């Protein structure tokens, strides 16, 4: 096993380990923190693949944005410090079975299809990503980009509508 393989397995173990922790812990705040570590592990994977931009985006979006949002919503709801009740035995069995099925399914897919390992070189310059994102031609992502932005706009309007204080009804 080469050093880079060892690093890969270490990172993978890190991600999965914290993923399992975040599922099994009974304190909701800790769960969010373990999720955070898991996401950091994913960005570590990107760094290991030498796609630094994606790695940094992973940190900015997931760690700086989404996990902070999750933590905030935990703070704002009640009783973030209480230990949640232990999951009933039936549910544990069901989730274990689901996980096993998921593994089996993934393994099946991988073994059935003949995936080829890449040569590890991709061209992921910031400028290339930028150009692709806005080009409408070959290998351009302008349409998905616009579609996503419309989705975000809709979400934003939804947020504003929810947050807006309803005016007292006039009598």
């Amino acid at each position, binding site marked *: 096993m080469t050093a880079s393989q060892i690093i890969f397995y270490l990172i993978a173990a890190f991600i999965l380990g914290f993923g399992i922790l975040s599922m099994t812990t009974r304190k909701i705040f800790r769960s969010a923190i373990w999720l955070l570590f898991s996401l950091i592990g994913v960005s570590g994977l990107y760094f290991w693949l030498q796609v630094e931009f994606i790695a940094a985006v992973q940190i900015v979006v997931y760690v700086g944005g989404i996990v*902070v949002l999750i933590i905030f919503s935990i703070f704002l709801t009640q009783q973030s410090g209480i230990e949640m009740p232990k999951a009933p035995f039936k549910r544990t069995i069901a989730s274990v079975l689901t996980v096993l099925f998921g593994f089996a399914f993934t393994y099946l897919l991988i073994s059935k299809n003949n995936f080829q390992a890449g040569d590890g070189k991709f061209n992921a310059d910031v400028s290339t990503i930028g150009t692709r994102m806005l080009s409408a031609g070959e290998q351009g992502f302008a349409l998905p980009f616009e579609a996503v932005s419309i989705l975000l706009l809709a979400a934003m309007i939804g947020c504003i509508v929810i947050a807006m204080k309803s005016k007292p009804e006039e009598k």
Partner: protein
Amino acid sequence: MWSLQNIADSVQHWLYATFNPTIAMLIEFAIIGVLAIGLFSMLGLVLIYMERKVSAWMQLRLGPNRVGPKGVFQTMADTLKLIVKEGMTPNGADKLLFNLAPFIVMISAMVILAPLTFAKGFQIWDINIGVFFIAAISSLSVIGILMAGWASNNKYSLLGAMRSGAQIVSYELSAGLSILAIVVLSGSLKITDIIASQENGWWIFKGHVPVWIAFVIFIIAVTAETNRAPFDLAEAESELTAGFHTEYSGMKFALFFLAEYVNIFVVCALGAILFLGGWMPLHFGTGTKFNEVMDYIPSSVWFFGKTFFLIFVIMWFRWTFPRLRIDQLLNLEWKYLLPISMINLLLVTLIAILNWHF
């Protein structure tokens, strides 16, 4: 000429000539680690001493003057005190997260040092997304603060953490946008490229009005991002006693304290790199005698000089202004700084496209 770059290069040459590449690389890592930690502690000592002397000077006091000449060893004595002090963990705290939090804050502060250029060609990791890397990692420290606030099982801490979270997340936007202004002008995220683009003049001179605006917004935003007065709402000692680190003592408190100062150093270094040309000496025109004299000053002196000037400015804020209130703080960001920096970014883009800068 004798410079940091030469030393680093010769050490590397010697290492790779003597050992096989893997061992040489590991030794290099070790050296870098030791240097980074050394720099870290030096920064802590120097900046805390500087803060005390600056505040004393502004407040008609003498500041520390007993330990060592002019009190220069005062910080050392304080560090010693903090090390031997018992690290208390309050009853009912989430012990694991409580103890983990200072390290997260500390490590994220440490990692940001990687892409900084301390002198000409003297840098740990010339990553090709340099400034973006800094912006990304610095968003990690907020998690540490939120963790510390929640795990302390103290309401002051929780409020401080909430404030700090809201503050850092929102001010990251305008800090990021003002960084982008320079990125647009220099056309690269890489820190060496950004410094190289300022060879014929710093951006603060070359870029005129929009860069000044970006610079002012940057300074305001990073002051807020590092939780410094007048944006020190996370600690706000007259309201929340000490905010998120109320319950911390001993070395864990010292780590927070140190991380705060290192963060100040990092953001000021970033400001110096983006706007004041990093290690580039001050030049006027081309080929004048003045430029030659300036070139004699070592590049590390230029870098640290600019950085410490910005640090002084940020300290000056702290000892002059009253603190904002949390809603005013968020108003300032969302209603003023963010729109201004967005429009400014458009302006800068226009200037970059039309080549209106010098």
